[in-house]
């Protein structure tokens, strides 16, 4: 059994391995520096540490509009997959789901999302949940 934290972006549901998650924060102000790269949104002061914040909207060829009131940030902790703590903006944080690895649908083609190159696998529960390969996502953004 593995736990995933799910969240929504543009009505698609994505998931990230819960073990990677450090915290969820909301109502924070970030310094927008979205000119650094296409997936980069800005920098957050998290208790004295400067954290990079990414966004997913570049996948939809749209500009992320960030509102500290509406958007939430999911922060991932440092691990072998994550060289340094970072966060990304989501429209909504949904739930934590349990899933047996054996029910995982590995077919990531025809997923209906604009870019599936960083999707590790798809879990079919109520809806399709696209589990993100964090390393690939970082490289892409």
């Amino acid at each position, binding site marked *: 059994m593995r736990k995933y934290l799910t969240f929504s972006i543009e009505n698609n549901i994505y998931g990230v391995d819960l073990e990677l998650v450090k915290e969820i924060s909301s109502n924070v*102000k*970030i*310094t*927008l*520096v979205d*000119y*650094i*790269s296409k997936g*980069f949104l*800005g*920098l*957050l*002061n998290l*208790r*004295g*540490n*400067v*954290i*990079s914040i*990414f966004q997913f909207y570049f996948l939809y060829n749209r500009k992320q509009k960030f509102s500290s009131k509406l958007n939430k940030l999911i922060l991932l902790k440092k691990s072998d997959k994550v*060289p*340094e703590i*970072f966060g990304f903006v989501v429209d909504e944080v949904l739930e934590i789901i349990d899933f047996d690895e054996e029910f995982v649908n590995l077919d990531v083609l025809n997923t209906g999302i604009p870019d599936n190159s960083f999707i590790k696998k798809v879990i079919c529960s109520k809806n399709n949940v696209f589990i993100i390969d964090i390393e690939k996502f*970082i490289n892409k*953004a």
Partner: protein
Amino acid sequence: MQNEEFIMDFVTDAKKHLKNIEEILINVEEVELKNDEVEKLLRLFHSIKGTAVFFSLDKIVDLSNSVEEVLQKIKNEDCHINNEIINLFLVAHDVLYRFVNDIRNSENYSIEEVIIELNNILHNKQINEKKTNKKETNKIVNNNKINIENNKLMENEKISVDISTLNELFNYTGEMVVYKNRLFDMLRDHYREINGLGLLLQNIDRATRGLQDNIMKTRMQSVKIILNKFPSITREFSRQLNKEIKLKIYEKDIYLDRAVIEVLEDPLTQIIRNSAVHGLEDSIERLNNNKTEHGNISIKAYYKSGLVYIDILDDGKGIDIEKIKKVTVERDILSPLEVKKLSEEEIIKIIFKPGFSTESNVTKFSGRGVGMDVVKTNIEKIGGKIEVYSKKGIGTTVRFVLPIKISIIKALIVDVNKNIITIPQNYVLEVIKIIDENYMEKIVNIKNEYYIRYRDKLIQIVDSYPLIKEKKDLGKYNKILIIKNGNGYYGLSIDDALDIEDIIVKPLPFYIKDCDFYSGVTILKNGMVSLILDPNGVLKSLSQSIKNYELTNNNDFKEKISSKKLNEKNDFKVLAFICDKKLFGIDMSKISHLDNINFNEIKNDKNSEFVNHKGKILKLVKLNSDYSCSKKKYLVFPKENNDNQTILVDEIVGIYDNKIINVEKKFGKNNYEIKGILENKIIRIIDIYDLLRRQ
């Protein structure tokens, strides 16, 4: 031991006193001891003695007492201070320091030697002894006073705190500021509803500000803290090696983060040891080489381009390149062929290789080859760089370049199209307002590149587009920052300069490390993160754009000559411009400034043309007969312009540095011309004075 706690207090206090003593003694090495310094020393030694008496630490008492007596004599002017005495004081200081560090065994140390020497000083001057006896009583009376003053001194003294605690405090303060600001935001509309809220918030604001400012200070330490250790370390080397060494320290208010300070001591010691052991020759050899008998080592610490530099210079024999080469080959580090290919600089770098040593014998001081490699690792660990310069027979300089990363710098906070960007203040020369009315007077458009007049220079303005990826016309910006770095000046367009803050530079987050324009990030007072501009990085992109500057719009230049064969270069800056569809150039150093006029401003009088420029009638000098092709013209003003002449040109192309290749010097009818090639176009370089004379 029931006194345990008190003894520990004594140790802490004594260490503090000893530190102060050392500071005074080190600084008086060259000069006389001033009266107040003698007083201070007396007080410090006395306090150590005073407390030591309680714990029956007899040796400490005896030693401090002996020093005190000598000091008293100096104070009464019965005895002249000399190097020997100061050295002796320092020895006493060192012994006391050892005692204090190992307080339980202090009674096992021997102090006889020092005491005997101190007594010698006392008794050598027995002629004056009678006077002293009288004053002996005074001394006792004075003691009460001293104690009172001592209590005052305590108020300013320091306690030691764990760095981790300070770091926590630092982070908490940062958080607090963010929360405070948010609280203020939320309550903004309710000030009137709750009585006294406004005042309360004001007080909270003041308190958090004060808290933050002071917490900032706690992280920083003067580099003096370590540099002041080196006189005694050098003295020790000097004694053991039997070489006379003079150490000079140049430092002015250089502050570094504690983390850097802590790491610095070992590398510095190692470098000074190297200078003392390998660098400096013995006195006979030195005299033979026309050098001073004593070896000289100096340490210089200074800020430069947002970095802290620490140079360690010696005037010894320099690094023996040949010896390094030999050892490198002998130990199979590199093949003889590889060694041959290396430049001197690269060879010097070999000394940083682990295990490398040119000494065949391992001595107490060196030869194991762990030195330079460790120095390098340590300096790199704190994000620094190490450079070595050496001239055979003249000396060696080792330079530590420590990053601004962990140190505090003053920075200008600017607004560029609503992006808040931080710029290290030492790069910023001036902020120039360019409001609409005088816009044209300050800014010159030369071939779609904007230049700003600054003193007697035309400085190119860099488009801030690459920084923030948002296009905005220069005219819509309010101000221009004049930025200077090692290689030159440039202007940067900004909307506003907001504030100057002391900032702590943090490294760029991992994910944006390759960003050229920024060197780090910082957290501003309001809790927001801001990127720190790297003026050098920006300049890199600027020189790129100048280099790629093509005269693409001027198809008239059809003459193309291969420039490969011709290498002779002009070594002056050239202003290139177009007249009558031909490309001309003038040595920039002979030009005072440029301006533009409209064609209809030109007045005709007989065969000459004039223009009224800022109330002055100027005669136009033309390089071509037909000048009616465009409405807008440019004026080039020569320096030393006594005849009020100005040169009329059609179009300004740009300013070029060292890029023009001479083709031929032409004599005869137009002998003021030198023909050259600029980016595959023929350019005629004109001697401006010659041209003016011909008019």
